[in-house]
Structures are given as structure tokens and as C-alpha cells.
């Protein structure tokens, strides 16, 4: 890649930051140069972000309709999945799966709620509610 080909397209997923990429300058030296971003990266990053946003939104609708607990929404809102939430809390996946059911979530002990809240970076009050 030559210096003049370094993308400066203003990738919105970088939030105004610039990243270092390596390219050849006019004298043939390979140098680090700050790039405002490449559309290719924006496309694939947005794809991943959108995917997680969609999961969270579905979970939010399910929670509103009483089909799942707010825990499912918060899990996806924190960009986690069942596996990572299990690893972060030390609670087995099958137990978490049960806790995604609203009637069971409503009866959770304060201790379990605290473990979930800590892993998700929330207060217990926030965890029990949708935003």
C-alpha cells in the first residue's frame, strides 16, 4: 500500500479516533501513518455491532411481552452471550437459561442478583428493569 492509498474515509465506528497503518512513502520507506478509517472496516464493524443491537432489541421486546426476563436484554446489551455471562458470573449455563424465564427471574435471591449485576456493571435495580 502506498501512502496516498491509505484510506481517510472517516470510518464512523472509530468515533473520531485515528488508527495507525503501515504504508510506503514516496521514497519507498514503510512508515506508520494515522488513518481516519476505511469503509471496509466500517462495514464489517457495523455488521457486528448491528447484530448485537438486534439481539438486544429482540430480547427487549420479549421482556416487554413477558416472554423473557430483563436479564436476557442486559446480557445482549452488554454485548455478551450465554457462554460469556456464565464465565463472568461463574453460574452454569443451564441455570442462567432458567433465569431468563421471567417468573423464575422474579424470585431470584439477592445474592444471585448481585452476581449478575456485578458481571454486567449494573445496580440490582437497573438489572430488574428495562431501560
Amino acid at each position: 500500500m502506498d501512502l496516498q492509498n491509505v484510506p481517510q474515509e472517516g470510518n464512523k465506528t472509530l468515533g473520531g479516533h485515528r488508527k495507525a497503518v503501515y504504508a510506503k512513502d514516496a521514497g519507498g520507506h514503510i512508515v506508520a501513518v494515522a488513518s481516519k478509517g476505511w469503509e471496509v472496516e466500517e462495514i464489517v464493524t457495523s455488521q457486528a455491532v448491528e447484530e448485537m443491537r438486534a439481539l438486544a432489541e429482540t430480547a427487549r421486546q420479549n421482556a416487554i411481552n413477558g416472554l423473557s426476563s430483563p436479564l436476557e436484554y442486559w446480557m445482549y446489551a452488554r454485548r455478551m452471550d450465554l457462554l460469556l455471562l456464565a464465565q463472568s458470573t461463574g453460574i452454569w449455563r443451564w441455570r442462567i437459561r432458567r433465569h431468563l424465564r421471567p417468573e423464575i427471574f422474579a424470585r431470584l435471591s439477592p445474592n444471585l442478583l448481585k452476581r449478575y449485576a456485578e458481571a454486567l456493571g449494573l445496580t440490582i435495580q437497573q438489572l430488574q428493569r428495562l431501560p
Partner: protein
Amino acid sequence: MTFAHHRHAAHCESGVVSNLISHHGVPISEAMAFGLSAALSFAYLPFIKLSGLPLIAYRQPPKSIIKGLAKVLAAEFRFETFRTPVAGQARLDELLAQGHVVGLQTSVYWLPYFPEDMRFHFNAHNLLVYGKEGNDYLISDPIGEQTVRCDAVSLSRARFAKGVLAPKGLLYTMQKLGVSTITPQAVRKAILKTCRTMRAPIPIIGVHGIRMLANKVAKLDPAAHASSLFVGHIIRMQEEIGTGGAGFRFLYAAFLQETAELSGMAVLAGFSERLMVIGDGWREFALATARMVKGRDAMNPTKLADLLHSLSEQEEVFFRDLKMAVT
């Protein structure tokens, strides 16, 4: 308080370690740190999942740059992990009070200064802490152009995140540096190691790994949503996650160019040129994939697989020639 050796880098670990060594009096470039530790690689690890997608790495596993470089430069690093966040923070404060610049492994997700869309649960990020003011740590994160601040609660959370590659509060300091000049022998050894890795007779590593990934891509269903996520994920690993472009190929080319100036190594200049061309091929693969993800071109797994096969073949020849040239 400022940190004189903050330099913007493509990759967190090579950036952190080259800035740290520069801080200890031996100016070393990011590319040199990356190349000397033989960090270039390729690995397709279908049994390690990140958000349900396989781990695809264009470099050696985390910590190998620090450890590899420590070996070449006879440097001593001290690594410490902690059971509890309280102990981890206390030790960090103690080291900072003693005037150390401290390296940390953290999760990306819990760092508030990261752009929102870049905050994924990736646990092998590296940064340097060079001071503390009030409740804020002063941080040199080589991914950023400037140094930043991070509050104690967020930093602690980032250091003790769980999951794949959990950092367990890992911190490291440099104790001493044994060697301050880079010899052609050390360079030769590092290059041979990379050639060995890239042509290792293991199906998931190096050029064989690229081929295996190509075969996996070829079998994707063009109509499935999951296929689009899968190929998009490859490009994120290759371009977005601080690789300096083309999955570290440009960075390694910079290393080859820099070492070509050492005595008797002039032949490497030509290899640097060749690797830049291969890197451009990786960028073309990224562009073709992104166009399909976006729907500008029809999803065509066969075409993407062909591009990967071609890259695998080019790298096979490249690393074979490179090995002949340095032995």
C-alpha cells in the same frame, strides 16, 4: 505528568513493548519489536469461539511478543496476576509510586475511552500505565494518538474481565535489558522462526491454516445470514483489530525493510517489497468481502475462497524463498 515515549502503533502488544523498551533507553520501532519476536502468523482455531465465531489470528498468541522480545534482548520482565481486584489495584499503585511504568493486559469492552463501536469483549488488549492523578490512571494506549485517562473502577473491571484469555489482572514491568544492539544473527533467527511457523505441517496454522479457512469459506451457503457474519468476522480480525493493515503483513514488511539495513541483510529489501504486494492482495480480499457483506456484490463464497487459496499459495512461496535467503 507526561509520558515521553508514547507512540501511536498499529498493534497494542508490539506498541506497548516497543514503547516500554524505548522508555528504558533503547529506542526500538514497533515493526522491529513485532519482527524480532517472530509474531507474524496465521491460525484458524474453530474450537475457540468469540461470540459464537471461530478465532482467526494473524499473529502469535498474546504475550508472545513480550516474551519473544525479552529472549532476543535478554530482557527481564516480571509478570504478576492476582486473585482479587483489590490486590491487583494495590500492587499497581505500589509500582507506580515506585516510579515504574507498568504494562497491563485488559479487556477492551470496559475501557471507557474506546470508541463505542469498538468495545467488544476481547480480553488480550495491552496498555501502559505511567501515573495516577487522584482517582484517574494516566494511560499510554498505543492504539490512540494521545495518552488518555481512565478511572480506577473502569480500569479494574477491564483488568479482571472473565472469559476467553481472561487477563486475571495481569501486570508486567521491565526489570533490566541485557542487549541494546540488534545483530544480524538475532534477525536471522527470528525470520527463520516465522518461516517455520508459516509453513508448519499443521492444518490450522500458517499457509495450511489459510487453506483450511478457504475450504471452510467455500462451503458456506451464499443465502445464509450466518455466512455473511462469518466472512465479515474474518475481515474484522484481519483489518479492524489493530493490525496495521492486511493482517500484520505490512508491519512485517516494515520490519524486513528496517533489518535490510543491517550488514549482510540487503537481500531482505526485495522481500519487503514482495510482502507489501501480498499485503495488497489481503486488502483486495477484504474489499471483496465487505462489498458482499454490504450487498453491493452478490455473496459469492467460491470467489472469496479462491482469493484465500491464492494468498495461501503466494505466502507458501514467499516464506520458502525467505527461508532460503537467510539460511
